[in-house]
Each structure stands twice: as C-alpha cells, then as structure tokens.
C-alpha cells in the first residue's frame, strides 16, 4: 500500500553509485530511490530516538529531512544520542546532528528548526513535509504531534522508550487505523511521569 504521494526525482550518476546497493533490491530499485530523493520527512527531536532516525534517513538518501529540537548537547546525552560527539557538548543539537547527517551523506538536504514545537508553529512546519517521525520525550509534545499530523493529513511514525522497553506504531487515521489518542485518550497524571 502506498501512503505517500508518488513523487520522484531523477538520480545523478553520483547518486546512482552511492545508492547502488539499494538499486539492486527489487523493493527499492531506481523508482524507489527516486521516491526517497523526492521525499520530505520531519523528525521531532534530535535525542535518543532522533539520532539514529536522522542518521539512517540521511544515509538512505531521503531528499529533505527536517529536524526540530530546542536543546543543546550535554555530556550525559552521549551514552545514547549517537548523532552527537564529545566535542559537540554545548552545541545546539540541531547543528550537531545536521553536521553528522551531512558528513554521512552530503547529497541530501537537512532543514533545522532550533525551537520548541508548539501549537503555534506546528501546522506551519508540518505542512512542508510528507510525513513526521516522533522522537520526542514528553507527553505534551506527543499529543501535539499526533493532532498536528492529523490536521496536516500526513502519516506519523510514533515511538517511545522507557529504560529497556520501547513501543512503536504508525498512525494515519485518514487512511485507516487508530491515532495516538485512540490508544491513550488521556495523558498519565503528571506525578507519574518520570523525569
């Protein structure tokens, strides 16, 4: 099933070479790689989830990747937020992850938003992308991302982790299936939320 608009962008010889191991997979091929090149994906957060997501999407050749995060890199982040290095401590996370993503693949474009996602800016930012991936770490952002993705009409890849456990789903209620609110109609009491 195809959940994205079928957009394609022609590959340059340099890209054909770089993505050759994709091009030989029947599920990807030239057409798939051209779709990836034309795709615009927004990643919420450049932390524990956002780091590998950003790195994989960049390496795979997603044409435009947006990253939004309002935090800076702290030494205690580095045990898991693998996009950032020791020398990045104190830098803005969006700057640090952008540098890492472009170091892996300079043929893509990374758009950064060094701000907190809010009800005021969410729809404007979401409207520029085909889908959104939520790597945020708090409930208010999670509900905001769910609602904004719904109003923008784009699919949402949801994931969250706690200690050794994680969960993941894809929400696209305009096509079928539930949204995040169908699972969790109300947030947990603030006193139960781990910091």
């Amino acid at each position, binding site marked *: *099933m*195809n*959940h*994205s608009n*079928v957009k394609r962008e022609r590959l340059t010889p340099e890209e054909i070479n770089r993505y050759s191991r994709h091009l030989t997979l029947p*599920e*990807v091929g030239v057409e*798939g790689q051209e*779709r*990836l090149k034309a*795709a615009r*994906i927004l990643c919420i957060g450049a932390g524990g*989830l956002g780091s*590998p*997501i950003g790195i*994989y*999407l960049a390496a*795979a050749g*997603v044409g435009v990747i947006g990253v939004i995060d309002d935090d800076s890199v702290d030494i*205690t982040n580095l045990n898991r937020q693998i996009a950032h290095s020791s020398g990045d401590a104190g830098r803005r996370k969006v700057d640090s992850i952008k540098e890492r993503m472009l170091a892996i693949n300079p043929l893509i474009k990374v758009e950064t938003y060094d701000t907190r996602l809010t*009800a005021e800016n*969410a*729809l404007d930012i979401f409207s520029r992308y085909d*889908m959104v*991936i939520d*790597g945020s770490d*708090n*409930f*208010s*952002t999670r*509900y*905001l991302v*769910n*609602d904004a993705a*719904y*109003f923008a009409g784009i*699919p949402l*890849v949801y*994931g969250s982790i706690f200690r*050794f*456990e*994680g*969960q*993941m*789903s*894809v*929400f696209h*209620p305009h096509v*079928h*299936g*539930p*949204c995040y*609110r*169908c*699972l969790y*109609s109300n*947030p947990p*009491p*603030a006193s139960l939320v781990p*910091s």
Partner: protein
Amino acid sequence: MATEAIKMVLGKGEVLIGRLMLYDSLRMSFKNVRLRKDPNCELCGDNPSVHELIDYQAFCSVPMPGDRQDYLGFDEQEVSITAQELKQLLQSEGRITLLDVREPHEWQIARIDKARLTPLSQFDEYIPEFNPEEEIYLYCYKGMRSLTALKKLYDKGFRKLHSLSGGIDRWAEEVDPDMPRY
C-alpha cells in the same frame, strides 16, 4: 522507525498501521498487538471534540505554581533550604536528621555525609520511625521527590520539615564539586 518511514515512501511492505509493536530488550522480545480505532476518539472518532490544536501543557496537566501549592498544602518556599544553608547546619549541628529519599542505585553513585537512605518507594514504611518534634531535612536528586516525601510527612502532622532546593545535584554544583554528578 526510520524503516517504517522508508517503507511508506517506497509504498512497499506492511507498515505498523493498526498495530503496536512492543520491544523488551531485557527479555529480547518483540510483541505485536492489534490496535483498533476508537469510535469515541476525541480527534479521529465519530463525534470529535478536538477541531484544532489545543493547549497541550494544560492538557497534560503540567502543574502551574498556584495549583502546586493547593496540592501540596504548604508553601514550597518556606520549606526550602539552600545547599549553603544545609552545609552550615551540617557543620554546626552534631546530630541532624537528614533523609535521602532517592533509590539505592542512586545512593551508590553519591550521597551526602550524615544522610540516611529512606527511598521514596518505601517511604511510608519508614514514617513511624521519625519524630515529629525533630527538625527533618529531606533531599533527592533535583528537589521534586523530596517534596513528595515531605508532603507525606506533612499530611501525617509533621511540621518541622525542610527540603533541599535543587537536590543533591545542586549540592554537588554549589558545595561539593568533587561529588560525581549523574
């Protein structure tokens, strides 16, 4: 998550729409549970009540200062003690009831001398051991859990209560720079 996004771009495979994948790395188990759309969902249900973006901080009841005081029943400022004040007390008083309400694995990393470990998770069991006539000082990691423990004592009639503002993290920053921080 990146793979799911890529599959949707490619239009290949089956994405997790309508399924929740649960991953437990200690058991190294992956489980898939079916998800159903909730017809009563306030966003995508049959009679939605959410028609535009709302105030998500309020929705998730991120507490406001006023609400907090109502909930706690005491003035946070009045029970707060700074790291410097606690340091002076520890130097001047021979004996002091200083309770560390963090959990044992945190106690292993760092602790304040003269403190006693009374984890918040078992705090109720310790309460009968405390004397309401004595001044009691509480601390945790950042100053939140010590307020929760303080409230438990306050609700039992204790009044001579103090909570280290900013917790052991602030203590390490302002009083004991050699203490490991986590």
